[in-house]
């Protein structure tokens, strides 16, 4: 890089001779910049169109800067300038890019060689962000200053700031971009006048004590200060070597050694990693602690409450929990000495754990935004019983298994393992949760858990009922059969079939009789062959004489008029007999092989063959 060349192209002000090629290139750049900013307002930053614009701008800037080293763009109210000449104009108040810069007092933008695409993209992002802010929040100069770009610099004179402060002080309208201060305000605000004639008038006579001290040379500097300057020396450079052993960095600073610099840098780093919300809460607790005025105390609590709900609405559940914990802590502290404050804190806690929190959480989850389930479930757990229905609602709406596990943990903890509460959360609209509750009851296996299965008889959701039926199959208690018998009345055939398959073959005469009775009912005639088979099969499994007699009679029964139901009953009784598996049953089946109905004959033959081969499970049906 030739320094003289660079200087020549930059510093000649408005009188400089304009290089036409440079002017055209600069114009092309600012036009492209304006278009890029427009595209950024229309599309997300990662959109391909934006990417193309940014690439184009980066290429154009690079090409210019490689040639000229630096691009200096002057900014007027509605124009970009180059060497005093208008380069680009946009007088649209809303979208004018020059105006956007100008309004905050930015007068010149400098782009330097070394600028890369990342820096350009960051710059454009700042422009986009600031342009989208409300006017009172937006300040492009502050944003650029904070970002502190290496290769993009700007000039925003203090005059602008002076004008702004004067206008705010004068209560007048602030003219943005204005850099000259009205004379009256200038006089009013700052007038630096020192009467320097006194500097050269008179003589200073030292007082006796000072004269004496100087004569003795007994006070040169404050000893404490010198003590912290270990490497202080006043000499000829030999002390350079006395610093050997210190790092080059530490040797530059006489005050701090390497360890101290490290410690201080760690302090700075830690300061950068502080979580602002946590800090805020900590601070607020201290402010509440210190507050003596109950009115202020309440006002501060109101502010905190707003902040709390803001956290919940925006998914800051961890913070919300911390809020509740900290306020609880300070409430406990105040419990004895200050009942009035305690009362206010209790009110606060009641509000934080009330319906508004639950509604806010429901809205957030419902909005489809990403949810921090770890935090939310911790909050729900903290809120306890009132939060359980919400947790139950969330359970079915969440697809993430890990989140579901966490919600289920909340539910289990919230119901304290009480299956009565647990079953209360099951419902047709919550099939996943209901099935998992069934799973939990199934694991419990006790009579108490079993008693709650009757609840599922009222459910409409087939999946839930099937799950309940399946779980009931695990119980050997008579009560399970009682519930399964209830499911035999279900409107859904699959449920009835599965229930029948899981009925335990216990010798409960009244139930067997009831079933046998029902086989003769009109309703039973409407059942499918498959359902009939599983019911008769169950009768066979009971191995009771009554069931045996009924099955035998049914198998060998000759109907006047052949009907599908009759055939189904006979085939079902074949399955029952096969389940029965006794010698009497085999004889009946052999008789069946000689019956006039081919389907029955074949079924009996197959059943006999299977019996001869050994047990193969429930004949005629497999439990799903």
């Amino acid at each position, binding site marked *: 890089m030739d320094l003289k060349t660079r200087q020549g192209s930059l510093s000649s002000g408005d009188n400089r001779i304009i290089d036409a090629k440079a002017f055209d290139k600069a114009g092309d750049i600012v036009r492209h910049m304006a278009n890029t900013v427009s595209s950024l307002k229309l599309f997300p930053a990662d959109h391909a169109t934006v990417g193309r614009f940014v690439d184009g701008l980066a290429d154009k800037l690079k090409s210019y800067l490689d040639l000229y080293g630096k691009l200096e763009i002057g900014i007027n109210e509605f124009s970009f300038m180059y060497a005093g000449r208008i380069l680009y104009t946009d007088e649209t108040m809303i979208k004018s890019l020059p105006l956007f810069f100008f309004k905050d007092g930015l007068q010149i933008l400098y782009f330097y060689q070394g600028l890369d695409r990342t820096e350009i993209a960051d710059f454009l992002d700042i422009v986009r962000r600031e342009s989208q802010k409300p006017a009172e929040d937006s300040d492009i100069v502050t944003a650029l200053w904070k970002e502190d770009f290496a290769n993009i610099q700007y000039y925003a004179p203090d005059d602008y700031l002076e004008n702004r402060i004067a206008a705010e002080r004068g209560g007048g309208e602030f003219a943005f971009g204005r850099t000259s201060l009205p004379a009256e305000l200038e006089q009013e605000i700052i007038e630096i006048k020192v009467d320097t004639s006194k500097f050269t008038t008179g003589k200073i006579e030292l007082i006796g004590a000072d004269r004496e001290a100087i004569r003795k040379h007994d006070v040169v*500097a404050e000893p404490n200060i010198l003590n912290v300057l270990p490497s202080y020396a006043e000499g000829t450079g030999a002390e350079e070597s006395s610093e050997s052993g210190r790092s080059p960095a530490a040797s530059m600073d006489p005050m*701090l050694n390497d360890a101290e610099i490290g410690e201080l840098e760690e302090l700075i780093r830690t300061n950068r990693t502080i979580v602002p919300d946590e800090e805020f809460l900590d601070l607020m607790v201290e402010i509440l602690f210190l507050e003596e005025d109950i009115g202020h105390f309440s006002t501060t609590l109101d502010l905190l409450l707003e902040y709390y709900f803001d956290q919940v609405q925006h998914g800051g559940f961890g913070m919300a929990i911390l809020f509740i914990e900290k306020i609880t802590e300070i409430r406990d502290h105040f419990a004895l000495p200050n009942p009035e404050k305690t009362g206010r804190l209790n009110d606060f806690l009641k509000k934080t754990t009330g319906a508004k929190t639950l509604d806010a959480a429901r809205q957030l989850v419902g909005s489809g935004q990403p949810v921090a389930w770890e935090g939310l479930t911790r909050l729900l757990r903290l809120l306890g019983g009132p939060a359980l229905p919400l947790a139950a609602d969330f359970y079915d709406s969440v697809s993430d298994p890990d989140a579901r596990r966490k919600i289920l943990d909340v539910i289990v903890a919230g119901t304290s393992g009480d299956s009565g509460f647990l079953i209360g959360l099951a419902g047709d609209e919550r099939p996943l949760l209901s099935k998992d509750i069934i799973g939990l009851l199934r694991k419990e296996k006790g009579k108490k858990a079993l008693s709650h299965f009757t609840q599922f008889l009222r459910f409409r959701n087939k999946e839930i009922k099937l799950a309940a039926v399946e779980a009931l199959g695990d119980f050997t208690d008579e009560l399970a059969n009682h519930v399964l018998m209830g499911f035999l009345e279900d409107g859904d055939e699959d449920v009835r079939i599965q229930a029948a398959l899981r009925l335990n073959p216990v010798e409960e005469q009244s139930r067997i009789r009831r079933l046998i009775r029902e086989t003769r009912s009109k309703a039973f005639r409407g059942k499918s062959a498959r359902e009939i088979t599983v019911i008769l099969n169950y009768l066979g499994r009971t191995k009771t004489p009554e069931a045996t007699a009924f099955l035998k009679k049914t198998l060998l029964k000759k109907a006047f008029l052949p009907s599908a139901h009759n055939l189904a009953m006979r085939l079902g009784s074949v399955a029952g007999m096969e389940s029965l598996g006794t010698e009497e049953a085999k004889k009946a089946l052999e008789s069946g092989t000689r019956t006039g109905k081919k389907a029955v004959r074949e079924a009996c033959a197959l059943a006999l063959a299977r019996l001869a081969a050994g047990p193969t499970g429930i004949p005629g049906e497999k439990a799903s």
Partner: protein
Amino acid sequence: MNETTVPSPEKPAEPPDQRRKTGQKAGVELLIHFHIVAKNARLYETNNTLFQEQVRALFDFLDVFFKGQQEASFEVRHSSLFFNGVRLKFGLASYPIFKFIFEEFRIRDIGALSFRPGLTPEELGRFIAAFGKKGKSAELPFDRLTADLDAAGVENVRLQKVLDAETFSSLHRDTARIFFLSIVHLKEAFERDQKDEKLTLNTTRRLMQSIFNHLVDNESFMVGLTNLKNFDDYTLNHSVNVCVLALALGRRLGLSHGELVDLGLAAFFHDLGKLDTPIEILNKPAALNDEERGIIERHPHQGAEKLLHLREFSRLPLRAIHVALEHHIKEDLSGYPRYFKRRDINFFSKIVKIVDFFDAVTSKRVYRADAFSRAQALSLMLENSGTEFNSLILKSFVHLMGVFPIGTFVALDTGELGIVFDANPETRFLLRPKVKLITDAEGKRIDGDIVDLAEADPQTGAFPRTIVKTLDPATYGIEVTDYFLAEAQ
């Protein structure tokens, strides 16, 4: 001087991040070498062995560097230092060399300096000797230096004069205006707060940037202005002083721009709570009783609450509330207020605590006729290092202020009296700041020059002037700030 262009080296493009890292490392190392050599050029003849060894070390570094690069160029651009196009960032430890190089460039009107391949150790020695030579004040420093280099046949070190935009003229006036503007703006903010009107925080943020920019360009003058006390209203003047000193210290500590804005804002409003303290208590010309002390000690809490309930609260850095609440809490957590649970105070509060204390005890108040001198204040603070103040931040502050802080009224061994105008960043010269002479040897008042006490007589090597005593300016009716403000007229 040769003005031909050296083409950019053809080498594979380095990723930008890598390029920045490499540039930063090499730039700082070269700066350290250059710093040592340039410092010693003032002390040694060119035939001195130590000087020659250091020139050789600088040359060896450049020689290795040129194996991969076609030039080694420093450039000052908008108060930043660039090395081969990469902006160099200074840390806590490297601040003095950055200050040194800026100062050396400034006094010579240098905008850029580049070393080129082909440079020999002898040529480098000649350059350093010319660079270290002091010129007469009437001469144009850049023109003199380039003429000397031409005469010495230095071809492979190039200089570029500072660009118009980078000139350092009129700085004092602008700096002073910003200082007073800050007081005006804070007054406005306080009045708005009393009237429950919105604060103009965007303006305050801009003001912080301006103060910082003036600190970068003109630190000693800006710090000198903090000798001004009780302008308009004590709390206003004090708050602005605290803000300026906090920003200066924060800059030394290497805080980012974003952090500095927040720190400045926090310092600016740290005493907002005093608006609720009755003026008769604030200005009571006698010791306070327990009740009055209790009222005074409420101001941090009141300040924090005021900030908390500002309508612009969401746009305020949280650390401003920390600072308002914590600036009287000591490092060992004693002081006031006493915390309920917290066991630490915020880093920004630690900074503001130091500068707040310093400015307060160096201010004369109705209840305290004799303020501490700046040096006495630092000494007092060091006695309480670690218990009242964070010892590391305090050390950095002492370094910022110097053994004889800016504004100290001093007697010299020549019989002359003067005011410290600038600290000398070099370790060995911490007792030799730059002093504005205000009397001659007989005590006759003069509007004298600013003399660098570190400048030795080239013939004898002896220092013509040495500080022998710090004096209380009030005893002699000296308004220290007038001397600074006069520079701004």
